[in-house]
């Protein structure tokens, strides 16, 4: 069948190097590589290649290379090849375009337009190798003031708090959208790093019950996998209202990924699509959110902080403040560049606003209302490196959620086809032959390495600023300067321009 769309990549095999071992044939779930009729010579068909590099990285002789397939169209700045191809895809199938991972569109990334400060002369920088440098953060609702009649003793009754040793947590990725091995790797890493992982809306697999002290368990509109023990076996409960990659719509797990294990964890029939409703059908307004928060708290004897995750949309600051007033202990804002296992392309690429602006606006709004210090604010939606995190904390975040970065540490190459369930790296798939490729013992160490390295970098950057505690970085916008930003952007970010 002709599908009117040229292929995207060409697989190039160096015949001089290839020893026809067949490794690539076994590795590519997209069936690009195959044995010739002679049963000995390896050949390939590039049409279904997604550039995941699994074959490239595993070829023992380094014979493989993936190249972008260039096939020029008649030039037209409006009708770009991408739009033409998307139209053809829809003409072929008649369905909504689906995509995975964060939007690839070149929207402004404000992290790249913000510069950090360092001390010189008037204020010494601090050497993180020689001096203590604190990255511990405490999340949860705080009373307005301390009750203490004398030094050394307090009578304050603290609501439940979460202590994390680095301001980086693992964002929601459900078992179902990712493999059990992938989720287990994150959970094991979270335990060792003293931080948290997040179950997403996929329930908690029995294999992870022993790591539930490091779990944020999600309650999403589909209520998949939600039961009393699930809620009680957790560190924190997160009500998912929205997700940055697809604000306004619910989660979507294609039936191909729902095997027996996933169906048990989610409490849904095997093979059925797990489609969460767009809204929570018991939350049509802010008062309803309040009721859900309180019932979750009651169910867990007020022992778990309840967080509310919202997508960064236009009115995000008012919504964040509403969530705080409805009783959320932690507010998570997910920016529109955030990743996803599957989202309608048009929504992913067009709905929502960047986390930088959403975070800056929400933090300021909560301060204007005098309630910022009583709730925690967590930012999500694409942190690529430690300096992105430093900038987010200086804008006002208590901590950041990361997901794509630890996946990349485990092997993900951002091929953007998680929704097909054929992830060659054993991450976004449930096929046993693929998931077994991901060894949690190895993968969790790689994730620990990554977060440890980032935490070190955060300490170095803080030391350079003359700060030895993350508490003094939080909301410290004077440490930030914009570069190449308009007056309006600077105003929303609440920062000055470089040189000012």
């Amino acid at each position, binding site marked *: 069948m002709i599908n009117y769309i040229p292929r995207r990549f060409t697989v190039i095999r160096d015949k001089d190097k290839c020893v026809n071992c067949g490794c690539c044939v076994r590795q590519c779930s997209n069936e690009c590589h195959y044995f010739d009729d002679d049963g000995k010579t390896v050949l390939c068909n590039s049409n279904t290649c997604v550039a995941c590099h699994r074959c490239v990285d595993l070829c023992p002789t380094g014979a493989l290379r993936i190249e972008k397939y260039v096939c020029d169209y008649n030039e037209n700045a409006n009708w770009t090849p991408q739009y033409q191809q998307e139209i053809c895809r829809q003409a072929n199938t008649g369905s909504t375009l689906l995509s995975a991972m964060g939007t690839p569109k070149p929207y402004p990334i404000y992290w790249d337009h913000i510069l950090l400060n360092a*001390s010189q002369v*008037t*204020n*010494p920088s*601090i050497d993180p190798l020689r*001096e*203590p440098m*604190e990255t*511990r953060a*405490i999340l*949860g609702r*705080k*009373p*307005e*003031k*301390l009750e*203490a*009649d*004398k*030094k*050394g*003793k*307090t009578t*304050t009754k*603290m609501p439940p*708090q979460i202590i994390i040793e680095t301001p980086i947590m693992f964002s929601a990725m459900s078992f179902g959208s990712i493999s059990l091995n992938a989720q287990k790797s994150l959970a094991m890493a979270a335990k060792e790093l003293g931080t948290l992982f997040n179950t997403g809306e996929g329930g908690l697999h029995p294999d992870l019950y022993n790591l539930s002290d490091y779990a944020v368990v999600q309650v999403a509109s589909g209520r998949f996998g939600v039961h009393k023990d699930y809620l009680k076996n957790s560190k924190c409960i997160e009500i998912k209202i929205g997700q940055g990659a697809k604000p306004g719509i619910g989660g979507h797990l294609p039936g191909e990924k729902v095997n027996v294990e996933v169906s048990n964890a989610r409490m849904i029939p095997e093979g059925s699509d797990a489609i969460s409703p767009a809204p929570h059908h018991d939350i049509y307004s802010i008062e309803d959110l309040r009721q859900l928060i309180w019932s979750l708290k009651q169910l867990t004897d007020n022992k778990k902080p309840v967080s509310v995750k919202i997508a960064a949309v236009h009115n995000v600051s008012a919504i964040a403040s509403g969530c705080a007033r409805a009783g959320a202990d932690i507010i998570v804002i997910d920016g529109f560049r955030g990743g996803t296992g599957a989202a309608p392309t048009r929504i992913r690429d067009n709905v929502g606003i960047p986390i930088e602006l959403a975070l800056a606006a929400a933090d300021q709004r909560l*301060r*204007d209302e*005098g*309630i*910022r*210090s009583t709730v925690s604010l967590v930012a999500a939606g694409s942190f690529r490196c430690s300096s992105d995190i430093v900038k987010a904390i200086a804008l*006002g975040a208590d901590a950041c959620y990361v997901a794509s970065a630890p996946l990349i540490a485990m092997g993900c190459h951002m091929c953007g086809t998680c929704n097909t369930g054929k992830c060659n790296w054993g991450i976004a798939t449930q096929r046993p032959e693929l998931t077994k490729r991901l060894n949690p013992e190895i993968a969790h160490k790689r994730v620990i390495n990554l977060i440890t390295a980032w935490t070190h970098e955060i300490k170095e950057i803080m030391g350079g*600023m*003359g*700060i*030895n*505690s993350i*508490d*003094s*970085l*939080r*909301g*410290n*916008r*004077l*440490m930030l300067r914009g570069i190449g930003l308009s007056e309006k952007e600077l105003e929303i970010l609440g920062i000055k321009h470089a040189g000012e």
Partner: protein
Amino acid sequence: MLKEGQIRIPSGCAIAAIIDKKGNKINGSEIIKSISLMHDRSNGLGGGFAAYGIYPDHKDENAFHVFYDNVEARKTCEEFLFKHFNIDVAERIPTKPVPSIDLGPDIWRYFGKANRVRMKTSRLDEDEYVAQCVTKVNNSIEGAYIFSSGKNMGCFKAVGYPEDVGEFYMLDRYEAYLWTAHGRFPTNTPGWWGGAHPFNILDWSIVHNGEISSYDTNRRYIEQFGYICTMQTDTEVITYLFDHLLRHHNLPIEVAADVLTAPEWDEIDRMPEDKKEYFTTLRAIYSGALVNGPFSVILGSNKGLLAINDRLKLRSLTAAIKGDRAYFASEESAIRIICPDPDKVWSVSGAEPVFIPLEIEEEVDE
């Protein structure tokens, strides 16, 4: 060029303080002698003093010290003060010409009690009423600046070296049980008298040495509660933090000091359970009020004197005791010149605040 308040100007400094905990009076010449020894730590761009117990005849009234840039400003400000307070005395603060001090603003002093009727209708307690009136004048009357507003205390400051400022105000004519002094080394020349230190609000006065790196975190924390940091100085934000913790949250002064210089987690984790809980709770609630970077701070009040130093001890601060008196200074020599033979001398360590309470209760009639 932008003046202080429109821009943040980093500065280094010298600080000194003396307290007699029995309330016996100390002449102003002593503190001048102490601070002048540290001449090199200032650069002539700001000096000042705070003195407690100097107005026994007006001890129940607020003493407002005001800088005026012009007559117009004085008229507007006086109109405001006369309306909101029952002013007993309005006079120029006596000064004498000192060659090194340029012609500055017109400096006035007023003694008066809050106007009861206005205060009651505003539904504020007296402290809040006074604080809001001062903020109002400083933010809305161009050319008028109230730089001191406490009871039975006063700040005296100018652009100049501290010893010259002391001479200018003739501080040897004042007797106080508590003195603090400040010499400034700004990296920039604001040339504005209001920018000199101590910084004062109600009975609290602060002298501070250092440049804090947590400035904007602290500013954005405190501005949640209605404070406006117009001066953009560390001293201002630290003063507001203390004012908020002591007056609005009713914390004992040592607890407030713990908030600003909380110990490190490493240390807290090793503490016995109740102390661990105390510091963990304190740090969780007041993470925005933790002060970071090099600083030493002396807080004067009618309850006593508090000295704190940064967590890494990046700024020097020495303390000494002799009989009923306690001395503090950026350098030990500045203490020894007025107290050659102290009973005890030590260096104030980071995260270990020193509080010298005043042992006599000042009688305040209600």
